[in-house]
């Protein structure tokens, strides 16, 4: 009976009408998925195009000088990106200098020292914290961290470094509580779980045999971390740090609350400043005139360009690590 059924079915299945219908359905489905995949590329191209389009009046008016001008005057329509660029780089630098060593410390703790039972809970907690929206960090920075800094840490820093050559100008002026330094700290706290989670993942790709061999030779725990794990995981850690840097550079809400939005470059880290994203967030809806809006869009273009470079480098580093990990197993 079974045989008969098959015999009846086969010619039907191969009938040319049915076959071509099936082919057509196949092609349609494949093309549909391809179209959606290309849509992703279209968004990317669209972003770049729209930013160029929107920024064009400013690019034409100010040229390359836009990048090196500190002035930001809506009334006289003189705009320059130097202050926001400086603020963006400086806050990200402070953030990375703080969060990378601490993040690596957490990763070492999680992969090497942590009791087995605690490893998963702490790891999961770190990953969950990495997903908390940045506005939460921003509101906390404004209401909690800024007053603490204003009353405690900032006067202390100003008093301590008073008279020390370079440091006295870095930590000078009245303690506003908000400013480049505060924004950098908030970014550090925000990127910390991200750095820790990625570094831990990278450390876990280190083959145990390597570590065991080093222990076998009599190396201490720290020597194994420093001489075996870190060199092996270097490209991955650098990639992860760049990914975090990409986030810090483009972060808007955590920074906007506490940066002070002042378009000037002060030698003091404690002074209010601005970043590219904070300037756009604060001023875009209130911008009057074509040139003002275009200048803000050009800031966005610069930000996109810089984060693109950083993220592309991060992708490359992580890809290298992946290929190596894949090649060894």
């Amino acid at each position, binding site marked *: 009976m079974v045989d008969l059924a098959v015999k009846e079915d086969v010619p039907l299945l191969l009938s040319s009408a049915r076959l071509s219908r099936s082919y057509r359905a196949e092609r349609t489905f494949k093309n549909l998925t391809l179209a959606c995949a290309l849509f992703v590329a279209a968004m990317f191209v669209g*972003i770049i195009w729209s930013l160029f389009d929107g920024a064009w009046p400013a690019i034409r008016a100010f040229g390359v000088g836009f990048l090196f001008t500190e002035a930001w005057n809506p009334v006289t329509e003189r705009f320059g990106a130097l202050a926001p660029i400086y603020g963006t780089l400086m806050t990200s630098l402070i953030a990375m200098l703080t969060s990378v060593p601490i993040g690596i410390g957490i990763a070492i703790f999680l992969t090497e020292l942590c009791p087995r039972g605690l490893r998963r809970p702490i790891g999961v907690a770190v990953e969950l914290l990495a997903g908390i929206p940045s506005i939460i960090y921003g509101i906390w920075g404004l209401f909690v961290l800024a007053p603490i800094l204003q009353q405690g840490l900032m006067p202390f820093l100003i008093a301590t470094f008073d008279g020390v050559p370079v440091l006295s100008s870095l930590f000078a002026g009245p303690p506003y509580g908000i400013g480049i330094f505060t924004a950098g700290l908030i970014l550090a706290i925000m990127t910390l779980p991200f750095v820790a989670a990625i570094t831990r993942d990278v450390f876990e790709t280190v083959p145990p045999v390597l570590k065991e061999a080093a222990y076998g030779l009599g190396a201490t725990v720290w020597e194994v971390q420093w001489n075996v794990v870190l060199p092996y995981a270097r490209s991955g850690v650098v990639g992860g740090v760049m990914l975090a840097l990409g986030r810090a550079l483009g972060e808007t809400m955590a920074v906007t609350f506490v940066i002070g939005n002042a378009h000037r470059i002060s030698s003091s880290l404690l002074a209010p400043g601005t970043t590219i994203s904070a300037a756009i967030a604060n001023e875009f809806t209130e911008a009057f005139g074509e040139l003002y809006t275009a200048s803000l869009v050009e800031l966005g273009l610069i930000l996109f360009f810089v984060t693109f470079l950083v993220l592309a480098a991060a992708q490359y580093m992580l890809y290298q690590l992946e290929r190596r990990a894949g090649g060894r197993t």
Partner: protein
Amino acid sequence: MNRGRYLRRRIRSGIFLGLSVGATLFGLGWLGVILGTLLYEGFSGIDLAMFTESTPPPGAMGGLLNAIFGSLMMGTIAVAVGTPIGLLAGTYLAEYGRYTRLAFFLRFVNDILLSAPSIVLGLFIYDVMVLPMGHFSAFAGAAALTVIVIPVVVRTTENMLLLIPNTLREAAIALGATRSHVIRRVTWRAAQAGIVTGALLAVARISGETAPLLFTSLNNQFWSVNPNEPMASLPVAIFQMAMSPYEDWHRLAWSGALLITMAVLALSITARVLESPQERR
């Protein structure tokens, strides 16, 4: 063996490991303090009015009803539009494209979009939707969120599909199933939990997004269900109230922040639970 030297190495090791324990305590401590403050400040402001009244005019009390509704509405539209596109695109990368140059390029572009500054995505939507339409609208806000949803879904879908063993596909093909049949009936089904995880993660990601909404959906102090008009959203409402000089508004902002954090944590935990039987690395 040189005892003194060995001892020095041991001490050095101990110091650095102590520092790493310290780093963990320090780092997690800060994060604990943030969550603690959030709980403390947020809970005191949560009451019935928060869920039944709209955002207040300056100096008055009110709730967050319109903002909560706006967030839900724009989030729903974004996920409804973004998930199918992301799912199909991820399917192309994992099933058809896999090792082609095009797929390699698309993967790269997608990963860039995944971490691109969200405020720039807002500028993009402002240019392609708000300007042509001539006004801010919830549609534009939803579109900006869609741009964020798609890369998240693409990435998780592709990752999940790649975890499905090839033998499963081969078995189905050997039985005479066509390629699209295999994808829809075998691989998608096997990766179901992972795909849902991707959608949940995307929702978690957009529920706190503020920057792209600032100049797409703007804000609206009043109750509005018309997606063609400016609409309030929780994050933007929090931003405006926190920046205001009114003490009452600050309390409302804290409560809203607590609400968002709870939602995000619940979503991430659900996603994690769903994912766990599939992926155990």
